């Protein structure tokens, strides 16, 4: 029984339980972010480096900023104590019992599962050298099950359009009276961190083909750079998205579908890339995807369709 | 092929008429009247052609597969022609009556649209070739009649509409259950001369019995059999042409016609007698006859009394069919036509009284004979016919029913007939006495002749004379009686 694993698992559960139980909203958000970071650590421990990166960048990073931003934008009356549950005590006990049974059943189920050797996983590992990318997860994402990845980018696009329709921009709510506006330190931080973030993001995207990384993780880091610039007043929002921004937003999906459809007659199957250019196409798709994801996550944060640079 | 699909064209004429009327909209009266009348006349012609065809024995059949193993079938046999001719003739007469009755009333396009839709449904019921098609048009009739019952829009009409729906849709659901149950026993439900159960009753004795009860329940609602008749008297709140054509002819007869179809063309006579269903049907019919007449006596409103009279008269048909002997069947089936003609005359007269002098209560009938002689003459004719006074139509059907009862050794039916005739007299004669001999209540009533306007009077006269003719000239080849004899000959295969 490895102490580290037991401790992490216990801490995870404790954090999640506190996050859901504690009445104060701000405290539960902070707990949730810490829970996300610890989860990223757990995944690194469970030999899933890609996911650790993704969870840290997207789950804890972007989501953390969004949660804190939303909490900030909720306005004073709503922020403090969240009303304790209105359910009668009996129902709470019932739901507690129900969830306990669910958890127990799931745990016992997972425990029972035999490790099947002949599943799709082993098949994927065996056919690894075939697709251009060495990294197994990226291979699955961009080649074997690239259909899922494509649909997923469409989900991101829908979320962005949905956020526009919700018409509740986050950035504007934080603008004026925020403490960060007037401190000299912010420009220093931005000048130092923004380029570092951009470089790391680009590296992650490029490295995705061979080492853990890829479009999503890289995109998230790039988005983080964008959020930093937005908070530092270098990046403002605009009422309507210019055509360039819209093009970049959908670039990933367009290239993905385009590559699939145009090459379909040749290979008689959707998204089956011919041998010679497979590597090239995948890289192209990955880069455009990263750009689209970065912009989408940024727009999910700002909440308004347009973006404009603010000088000085 | 066109000739063979004649039943479909008969149905389509009124359907198309309905669509044209709906589309034409409220303002174009001239167009609506011409379309209605033209459709009615054209349908009459088609029915005549079909009549001749059936007489010659031509085959009229249209099949359309709706589901694997389930078909919409329209065909025309002798029984169909009986109901189709009755409806076609009376639709023409009632359309003329309705056009003048609704002179200035609002929503006339809506009225005539649903009116012709009702007739289309009735035609469908008449020409249906199997239980499935019958049920399709049976429910369509409910949907088409509801708007007519609530046509006036008064809160009272709405309440009646709700009652009407509850009964008819409930009945429809029970009927559907019966049909599907029959279907699941492997009986497709086609209308074949000797019945299409072909031996199923041997294996599933109880189920077949139970299914008959379901079918009877479903059809009984529209045939106004006793426990299910409540909607009919209250439906009198509808305008006169509606209560005339629909509640005296189309809707009520659809139920009775359904019972006839089920008894003869689905179950067949042997099964009916073997499972004692015949006597059950006859018993229920008798109860309704007596109950209907008793309730009629207690009514003060003219149309409600006529409604209860309808409740009891329709059960004569069920009684005739229930007895199962050839003569009783003749009596029952011919009463379908005779009752239709007589009852529509009475309702037309009631409509005339209400429209010209606003008479609704029976007490207000005093001395109306002097002021509206023709209408009251027709009323008297109809009344005597209903009572079964020879040589009128009512007598012919009751005579055959009596003979049929003797033939089927169901002696208990004779006293039922006599008692009901007596009860008829009890509720009809006082009305006649008031109309002719009682002095008019207020002074201005004695001013002189104030007959209903021509548009209302002429149709009443036509139906009155037709009722008279059906009785007196029963012997002629194309009279309802001889046609029914032709049907019975086919059914019993003599």
């Amino acid at each position, binding site marked *: 029984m490895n102490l580290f694993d037991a401790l992490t698992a216990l801490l995870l559960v404790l954090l999640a339980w506190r996050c859901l139980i504690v009445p104060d909203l701000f405290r539960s958000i902070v707990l949730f972010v810490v829970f996300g970071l610890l989860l990223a650590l757990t995944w690194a421990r469970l030999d899933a480096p890609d996911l650790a990166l993704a969870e840290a960048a997207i789950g804890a990073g972007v989501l953390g900023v969004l949660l804190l931003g939303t909490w900030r934008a909720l306005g004073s009356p709503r922020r403090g104590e969240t009303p304790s549950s209105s359910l009668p005590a009996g129902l709470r006990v019932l739901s507690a019992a129900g969830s306990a049974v669910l958890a127990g059943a799931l745990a016992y189920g997972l425990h029972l599962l035999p490790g099947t050797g002949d599943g799709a996983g082993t098949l994927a590992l065996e056919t690894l050298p075939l697709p251009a990318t060495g990294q197994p997860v990226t291979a699955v994402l961009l080649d074997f*099950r690239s259909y899922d990845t494509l649909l997923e980018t469409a989900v991101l696009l829908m979320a962005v359009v949905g956020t526009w329709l919700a018409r509740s921009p986050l950035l504007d709510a934080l603008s004026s009276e925020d403490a960060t506006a007037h401190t000299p330190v912010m420009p220093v931080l931005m000048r130092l961190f923004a380029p570092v973030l951009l470089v790391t993001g680009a590296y992650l995207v490029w490295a995705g083909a061979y080492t853990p990384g890829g479009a999503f993780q890289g995109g998230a880091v790039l988005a983080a750079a964008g959020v930093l610039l937005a908070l530092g007043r270098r990046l403002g929002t605009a009422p309507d998205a210019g055509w360039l921004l819209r093009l970049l937003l959908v670039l990933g999906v367009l290239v993905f579908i385009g590559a699939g459809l145009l090459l379909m007659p040749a290979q008689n199957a959707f998204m089956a890339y011919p041998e010679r250019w497979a590597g090239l196409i995948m890289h192209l798709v990955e880069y455009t995807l990263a750009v689209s994801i970065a912009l989408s996550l940024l727009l999910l944060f700002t909440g308004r369709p347009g973006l404009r640079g603010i000088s000085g | 092929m066109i000739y063979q699909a004649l039943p479909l064209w008969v149905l389509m004429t009124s359907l198309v008429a309905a669509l044209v009327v709906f589309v034409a909209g409220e303002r174009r009266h001239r167009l609506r009247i011409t379309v209605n009348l033209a459709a009615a006349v054209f349908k009459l012609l088609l029915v005549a052609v079909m009549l001749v065809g059936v007489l010659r024995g031509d085959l009229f059949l249209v099949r359309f597969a709706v*589901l694997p193993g389930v078909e919409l079938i329209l065909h025309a046999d002798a029984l169909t022609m009986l109901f189709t001719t009755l409806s076609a003739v009376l639709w023409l007469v009632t359309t003329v009556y309705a056009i003048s009755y609704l002179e200035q009333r609002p929503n006339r396009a809506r009225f005539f649209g649903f009116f012709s839709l009702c007739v289309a449904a009735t035609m469908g019921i008449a020409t249906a070739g199997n239980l499935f098609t019958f049920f399709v048009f049976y429910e369509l009739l409910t949907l088409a009649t509801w708007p007519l019952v609530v046509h006036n*829009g008064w809160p009272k009409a709405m309440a009646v509409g709700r009652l009407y729906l509850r009964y008819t849709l409930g009945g429809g659901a029970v009927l559907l*259950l019966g049909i599907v149950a029959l279907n699941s026993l492997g009986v497709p439900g086609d209308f074949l001369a000797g019945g299409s159960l072909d031996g199923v009753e041997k294996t599933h004795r109880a189920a077949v019995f139970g299914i008959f009860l379901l079918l009877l329940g479903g059809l009984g609602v529209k045939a106004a059999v006793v426990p299910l008749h409540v909607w009919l008297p209250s439906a009198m709140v509808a305008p006169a042409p509606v209560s005339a054509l629909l509640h005296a002819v189309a809707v009520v007869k659809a139920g009775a016609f359904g019972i006839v179809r089920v008894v003869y063309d689905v179950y067949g006579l042997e099964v009916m007698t073997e499972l004692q269903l015949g006597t059950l049907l006859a018993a229920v019919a008798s109860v309704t006859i007596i109950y209907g007449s008793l309730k009629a006596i207690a009514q003060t409103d003219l149309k409600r009394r006529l409604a209860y009279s309808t409740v009891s008269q329709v059960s004569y048909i069920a009684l005739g069919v229930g007895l199962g002997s050839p003569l009783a069947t003749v009596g029952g089936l011919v009463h379908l036509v005779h009752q239709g003609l007589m009852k529509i005359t009475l309702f037309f007269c009631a409509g005339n009284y209400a429209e010209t002098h606003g008479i609704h209560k029976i007490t207000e009938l005093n001395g109306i004979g002097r002021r509206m002689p023709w209408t009251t003459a027709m009323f008297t004719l109809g009344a005597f016919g209903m009572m079964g006074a020879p040589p009128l139509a009512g007598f012919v059907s009751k005579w055959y029913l009596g003979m049929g009862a003797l033939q089927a050794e169901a002696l208990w039916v004779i006293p039922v007939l006599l008692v009901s005739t007596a009860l008829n007299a009890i509720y009809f004669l006082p009305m006649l006495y008031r109309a002719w001999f009682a002095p008019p209540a207020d002074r201005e009533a004695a001013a002189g002749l104030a007959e209903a306007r021509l548009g209302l009077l002429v149709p009443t006269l036509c139906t009155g004379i037709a009722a008279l003719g059906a009785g007196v000239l029963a012997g002629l080849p194309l009279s309802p009686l001889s046609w029914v004899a032709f049907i019975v000959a086919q059914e019993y295969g003599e």
Partner: protein
Amino acid sequence: MTEMLPVLAVFLPLLAGVILFLSGPGPGGLWALGGIVLSAAPSLLLVRQVAVMGTIEHLMGGWSVPLGIRLMADGLSALMILLTAVVGVLVSIHALGLFDRRDAASRQFWVLWPLLWGALNALFLSADLFNAYVTLELVTLAAIPLVLLAGSARAVSAALRYLILALFGSMLYLAGVALIYGLTGVLDMQLAGERLAGGGWVVNLAAALMVTGLLVKAAIVPFHLWLPDAHGSAPAPVSALLSALVVKAAVYLLLRLWSGPLLEPLSQPSVAWLLAGLGVAAILYGSVQALRQPRLKLVVAYSTVAQLGYMLLLFPMAGLLAWQGVIYHGVAHGVAKAALFLAAGNILYQIGHDRIVDLRGSGTVLAVSFGTFAIAGISIMGLPPSGGFLGKWLLLQATLGAGAWWLALVILAGGLLAAGYVFRVLRAAFQLPDSDAEGMEPPVRHIGPLMRWPALVLALLGIALGFAGEPLLALLGDMPGGAG
């Protein structure tokens, strides 16, 4: 070429959505119309192909099954794609009248709707458990922003509750998929089905999780709380799409799982009767609630909750008749419910409110809308000659064949209750305005032909379905792999 059709049916609508997103506030309806045609064409071609050639399969990315994802267009998916295409085109025409492309918010309808269309086609074609999760999520996330188009505070809180519950449903479904992947190591439905043949405790747990997740997303009674508000407060064409297609997608997936991998766990008598019990509860509860709603759109929304209950009656009567009955009822309900919502939307648009009590006397003024409502109501009530009736007929035959008498009574009772709430609305059309009201105040806004006629066409289609039983059931073919 036929190999490409499933892919085109998914990606052309998505492409249309993306192009409309790119085109920005530019030209008016023409682009939108182009988008609709671009989306409808492949769907119809695919349906024709399936009718001719039977099941079509396509291995995405050229990889064989356990590794890659398989798209499969069999009878059931072809029927659902046909339903989506038909309802989609007519609702789009109606939306052309309502959402003009200049206004920023309603322009997004023309982005989200083709994406939703593509997502629906993707879901109907998917034969892979995880891919079904992604497409289901895609459908939900395209539908929720559409609810927002109305922009009212009610719509926002309804959308939020819808989102939270839909997310929860998806997570449960994913938990089930995880367990199945743990057991079998494959995600393809057919392969998983073969490897799950042994059954056992874990399969039951996985089935329970997946089914619960789908029941939440399909708003079956215990989890229906989000539906009435979401469908009630959304604009008319959106609620038509939601009720006719989106909610049915979750039930479709349930049927697909039942006839595929989860056949054994779900056909155990106890589970089958539990699901049927939920269906009965949905029918009765939804209808009773529909009878009590003050607003027209809520009546129609609760009617959806009720009508979806019918689709759960399949499980205890596993047979070809029940299968055909449930699916035919689903298709007929889709068409008729879309017509009902469009008609209700027209009424609301014209006289500014949809309180049933105050509809009195508006019959003459809104003749076409009430006419559409009546015709569509016939199919919802399951009265002949409508598609709903054929569905009810097949279901009744199935229940009586299986000897489940009380289930037949429930179906009939459902029909009568439906008659209750349909005629409750129609009564307003025939009733005279009460004497003191100074006659019907003139309609607030006049609706153009674009908004008026698609609803009527959909209603008439509901009736036409009453006659088109033979070809459609031939297209559906027999029950895939079930105990039929």
